[in-house]
C-alpha cells in the first residue's frame, strides 16, 4: 500500500524523502548517460554527409560493419585482447590480493594504497612510462642494443605490446576489487575446510572463490570494459597491425567525420560489453556468495 506524501505541515513520508534525495542524481545520470547512449543508438541508423548527420533511416552502417572484414577484425582483436588481458589479470591478481589480505598485516593499508596510486597519474603519463621502458627507444630495447643484442620485437608496436600496456593500466583495479572483497572474508573458514579434509586447492574452489566471487566479477568488469573500449594504448603501443576497435571508433569522430558509422560502432561496442557483463551477472548467485542480506 502506497504511503502518501502528507501535505499538512511539512511532514514528508520516507518514500518522498528518498525520492527527493535520490532523484536529482538519478535524473542526472539518465540525462547525461542513458539519453546520450540512446541517441547514438538512433544516430547509428542515420547517414553522415559532409560532417552532418542526416536523419535518413537505414541499416547501411551496420551493413558496413558486418560485411567489411576489416571492421570485424578490429572488433575480434579487441574482444580477444580484452578477454586475454582479463584472464591473465585474474590469474595474476588473485594470489597477490590474497597475499595482501591474508599476510599483509600492518602493511595492508600501505600495500593497497601503493597498488592504487599509479592509476591516479593518468593514462597518457602511464603510457609514457611504459613506452619509456618497453618502447623502441625505451630502457629494455636500448639496453639490449647497447650490449649488441637485437631488440625484442614483440615489445615494439605489436598487439602484444598493446595488451601489456592495457594490463599495466587496469590490473590495479582487479587487485583492489579482490582485495577489498577478501577483507570481509573470514579466513577461519579455510581452517574449517581443512579440518573437514579439504586440501588447499579444493578449499580455494569450494570456499574462498565462491565467497569472493562478487568481488572477482567486479574486478573482471573493471578490467574488461575499459580494455574492450581502449583506443589510446593500441594507438601508441600497438603498431599498424594492432589497431583496436576503440581506436577505429575514435577515428570516425576525428579525421573522417563519419558520425553515423561511429555511432553504430559505439552501439556494437556497448552491446558486446553488456553481453559479457550479463554473462558475468548470471554467474552470480547471491546466496552462494555468502550474502546473507541486510535489512530492507
Amino acid at each position, binding site marked *: *500500500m502506497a504511503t502518501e506524501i*502528507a501535505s*499538512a*505541515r*511539512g*511532514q514528508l513520508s520516507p518514500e518522498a524523502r528518498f525520492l527527493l534525495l535520490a532523484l536529482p542524481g538519478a535524473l542526472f545520470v539518465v540525462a547525461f548517460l542513458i539519453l546520450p547512449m540512446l541517441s547514438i543508438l538512433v544516430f547509428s541508423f542515420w547517414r553522415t554527409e559532409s560532417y552532418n548527420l542526416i536523419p535518413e533511416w537505414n541499416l547501411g552502417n551496420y551493413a558496413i560493419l558486418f560485411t567489411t572484414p576489416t571492421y570485424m577484425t578490429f572488433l575480434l582483436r579487441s574482444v580477444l585482447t580484452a578477454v586475454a588481458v582479463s584472464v591473465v589479470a585474474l590469474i595474476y591478481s588473485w594470489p597477490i590480493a590474497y597475499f595482501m589480505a591474508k599476510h599483509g598485516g600492518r602493511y595492508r593499508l600501505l600495500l593497497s594504497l601503493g597498488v592504487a596510486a599509479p592509476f591516479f597519474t593518468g593514462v597518457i603519463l602511464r603510457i609514457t612510462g611504459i613506452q619509456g621502458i618497453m618502447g623502441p627507444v625505451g630502457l629494455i630495447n636500448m639496453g639490449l642494443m647497447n650490449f649488441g643484442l637485437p631488440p625484442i620485437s614483440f615489445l615494439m608496436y605489436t598487439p602484444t605490446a598493446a595488451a601489456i600496456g592495457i594490463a599495466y593500466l587496469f590490473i590495479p583495479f582487479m587487485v583492489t576489487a579482490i582485495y577489498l572483497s577478501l577483507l570481509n572474508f573470514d579466513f577461519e573458514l579455510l581452517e574449517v575446510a581443512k579440518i573437514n579434509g579439504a586440501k588447499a586447492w579444493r578449499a580455494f574452489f569450494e570456499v574462498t572463490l565462491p565467497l569472493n566471487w562478487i568481488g572477482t566479477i567486479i574486478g573482471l568488469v573493471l578490467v574488461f570494459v575499459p580494455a574492450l573500449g581502449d583506443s589510446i594504448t593500441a594507438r601508441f603501443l600497438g603498431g599498424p597491425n594492432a589497431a583496436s576497435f576503440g581506436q577505429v571508433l575514435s577515428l570516425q569522430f576525428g579525421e573522417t567525420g563519419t558520425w553515423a558509422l561511429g555511432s553504430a560502432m559505439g552501439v556494437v561496442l556497448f552491446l558486446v560489453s553488456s553481453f559479457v557483463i550479463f554473462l558475468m551477472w548470471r554467474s552470480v548467485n547471491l546466496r552462494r556468495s555468502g550474502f546473507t542480506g541486510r535489512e530492507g
Partner: protein
Amino acid sequence: MADFVLELDRVTKRFGDVTAADDLSLQVAQGEFFALLGPSGSGKTTLLRIIAGLELPDSGRVLINGQDVTRLPPYARKVGMVFQNFLLFPHKTVAENVVFPLRMQGAPKERQRERLAWALKLLRLEGLEDRYPNQLSGGQQQRVALARGLIARPALLLLDEPLANLDRELRKEMEVEVRRYQVELTTPFIYVTHNQEEALTMSDRIAVMAKGRFEQVAPKLEVYTHPTSPFVAGFVGHSNKMSGRLTALDGSRARLDWQGVEIAVPSPARAGVGDRVDYFVKCEHMVLRSPNDPPEPGMANRVPGVLRDVIFKGPTADYLARLDNGVELTVTDAVTMPSIRRDDPIHVAWAPEAGQCFAAAG
C-alpha cells in the same frame, strides 16, 4: 478536570500485511509511569515511534496536552526520548549532547547554561562535561541520554528499552534510579520493555501488548494478580498453564479434565461444558507437600506426583514436579523443604481461585 498529557485515539499502523498497531486508544496523565510491555514484534516500539513522530500512523490521532500532533514532525513536538543504544552524538561532548535540545529550540544562552547545570546535577554527571561518549561507561552514557531527554522539560519522556544494553547489576540500580527521576519530576514516562520484571518494578500502569493490540491496560498490581487474557496470564509472572475440557459448570466454579486429572477452576467466561479452556496458576500460588502432610485449608486442588528437581534461586526455590498424569508443574516456594528429595513422592496443591481460567482460542 485533569487533562491527559498523552492521548491516543484509535491509532492504527500497518507495514505490508503486518499490523503493528491495531486501533489503539490510550490516555496517560501527568505523574504516571506508564509501561508498554510485550514480546518483540508486539508493536510497542512502533507505538512509541508514532508518539515521537518518527512514524506516521495510517489512521487515528495522537494528542499531546490536548493538541493534535498526529501529523506534526518530531521536531515540532515537545517530547524527549531515550533510546536503547543511547544514540549519543559521538562527535559531541557530554555537555554538548545534553544541551542539544535547548539549542535546537533556540533557547537563550543563559537558560541553556542554567538548565545544563541542573541536568548534570540531577543525573550526577558533574565533572564529565568535556568527555566524549566513547570515554564513558555504559551507565554513564545512559545517564547522559536521560539528561538529554529531560533537559528541555518535555511534556513526555519516551524510553525505548533503555536498560537492555546494561549488565544485570547496573540494570537493577538504574531501575530504581529511573523511577526516582520520574517521581521527582512528575513528567509522564512512557517506557517500552519486553522485560516484565522491569515493568513491574518501575511502572504505575502497564499496557500488555501482543500483535499490535492491548491485551490489558491496568495498574501493575492488577495486571499481575488479575490478568484478563490468556496472553497476559502467561506472559506476566511465571505461571503454570493447564489445558483441558470443562466437565462441569456450577455457578462460579467449574471442573476441568486436565490430562486425566480432575481439578476445580473458577468458571471461565464464554465457555460451557465440553469446551476447551486454558487455566493459569502462578508458580508461587502453589505449594509442595509430602503425601503424609495434612491438606492445606482452602487448597481444594491436590495432585500427586514426584519431585524431579529443585532450582535454588536465593530467597526462593523452584520445585519441578512431574505429576502422575505425566505433566510437569513448577512450584515456587520458600526454601524450607529439605526433607523432600528428588524422586520422592509429593503432592502439589493450590486454591482454585488463585488462578485464572479462559476459554481456549480457536
